[in-house]
């Protein structure tokens, strides 16, 4: 019999803005984590407003079914006002909206698990690949290498913090174990978050937006003895679609069909079917549009699994 390990869990951060329902995405993804990874320990860090919106639109029952630990924090209002990001719903629609990502550096203190995988709410778990991380020799892992699922598309600006700068690590998926090294790593990330101007001057990242990718990359550089690419990567490849892409439909709990924007013809798309591999979908509106479909698939799966388990239990007890 498989034993449940309460020392391992998944952590997500979900703070809505005026347009994007991050909490809804977290619920969908939590159910995907349960269905595809078999992990029940899921913590979501949110704020009172996002939680209230989630309870209104999804209902407390579904939220409870998806997430077994909700941590509610108050947002830093000044940070929220200042950190504005350009969001795209394909090349046709762009909007500047607040992007609240100030508390990911607190993940070490927030996580109740001995081993944690932090994932973005828009990193859809379509497989069990991340289970390879549990019990790993490396106590901290994240990816610098990524693969755009529109294979022809190349964007060299995403490789480094600036043209001559350090390698950019993606904080989209982070695995860590509670060790002194991981604690120091997160302290370093906190220091970057608290002193963004200093680190921006030092590492010369572009734009005014604070991104966790930057602070985690800087911490990775510092905590590796100022050696580039020294922090080990996850044993999985980070696949990404961008905010210029869209989702056609969700086929089942492991498969989505996407519209991918052609590199030399903006606003023009090809279709691709993406199956059984986790995927970072940066167009948040697109995920929200298929969230109903996805919820249908994952709630059916969990109900079917429960019924099967109940039947098996009954069958074995009457033997």
């Amino acid at each position, binding site marked *: 019999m498989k034993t449940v390990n309460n020392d391992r869990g998944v952590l997500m951060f979900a703070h809505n803005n005026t347009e994007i329902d991050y909490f809804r995405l977290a619920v969908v993804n939590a159910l995907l984590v349960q269905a595809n990874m078999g992990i029940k320990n899921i913590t979501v860090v949110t704020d009172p407003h996002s939680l209230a919106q989630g309870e209104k639109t999804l209902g407390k029952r579904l939220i409870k079914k998806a997430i077994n630990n909700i941590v509610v924090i108050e947002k830093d209002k000044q940070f929220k006002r200042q950190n504005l990001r350009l969001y795209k719903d394909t090349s046709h629609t762009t909007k500047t909206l607040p992007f609240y990502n100030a508390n990911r550096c607190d993940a070490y203190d927030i996580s109740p698990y001995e081993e944690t995988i932090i994932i973005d709410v828009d990193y859809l778990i379509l*497989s069990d*690949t991340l289970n*390879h*991380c549990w*019990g*790993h*020799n*490396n106590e901290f892992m994240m990816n610098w290498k990524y*693969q755009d*699922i*529109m*294979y*022809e598309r190349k964007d060299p600006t995403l490789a480094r913090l600036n043209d001559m700068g350090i390698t950019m690590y993606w904080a989209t998926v982070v695995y860590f174990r509670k060790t002194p090294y991981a604690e120091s790593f997160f302290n370093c990330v906190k220091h970057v978050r608290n002193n963004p101007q200093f680190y921006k001057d030092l590492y010369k990242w572009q734009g005014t937006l604070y991104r966790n990718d930057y602070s985690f990359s800087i911490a990775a550089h510092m905590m590796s003895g100022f050696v580039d690419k020294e922090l*080990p990567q996850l*044993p*999985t*490849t980070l*696949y990404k679609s961008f905010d210029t892409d869209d989702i*056609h439909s969700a*086929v089942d709990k492991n498969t989505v*069909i996407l519209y*991918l924007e*052609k590199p030399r013809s903006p606003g023009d798309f*090809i*279709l*691709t*079917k*993406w*199956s*059984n*591999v986790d995927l970072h979908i940066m167009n948040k509106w697109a995920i929200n549009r298929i969230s109903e479909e996805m919820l249908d698939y994952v709630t059916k799966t969990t109900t079917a699994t429960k019924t099967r388990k109940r039947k098996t239990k009954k069958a074995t007890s009457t033997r």
Partner: protein
Amino acid sequence: MSTKLTKALEFANYRVTLNNQRSALLAKVDSLLSYSINGGSFTIDLHLITFCKQLIDEGMKETVMLDIYKNPIKIDLESFYEEIRSRYFEVTNEYYVEYEKLRKARKTHKILDLNENGE
């Protein structure tokens, strides 16, 4: 636009979709051919399978192998070999089936298992 040109552009679109879909399929294969054990991660390939078989044939029960991070990992050869071998065949057989399906698809919607209306 002439009919010939429209057809040519349609075919170009089909080729781009097909190539991308092949890469997507390969991504799935790569992901499934990754195997983690005893705190290390390995990529299952012919080299690893053959090497394990060679060691078993030499009568070895346990060995230390370098994983993808170049970390030394202690391995129980019999169970490790069984696991990677069965995974390899499972994944490559599935790959073969899906690849053949893709190879025979002559229309964009067929590549994606959609009907002509894109549904």
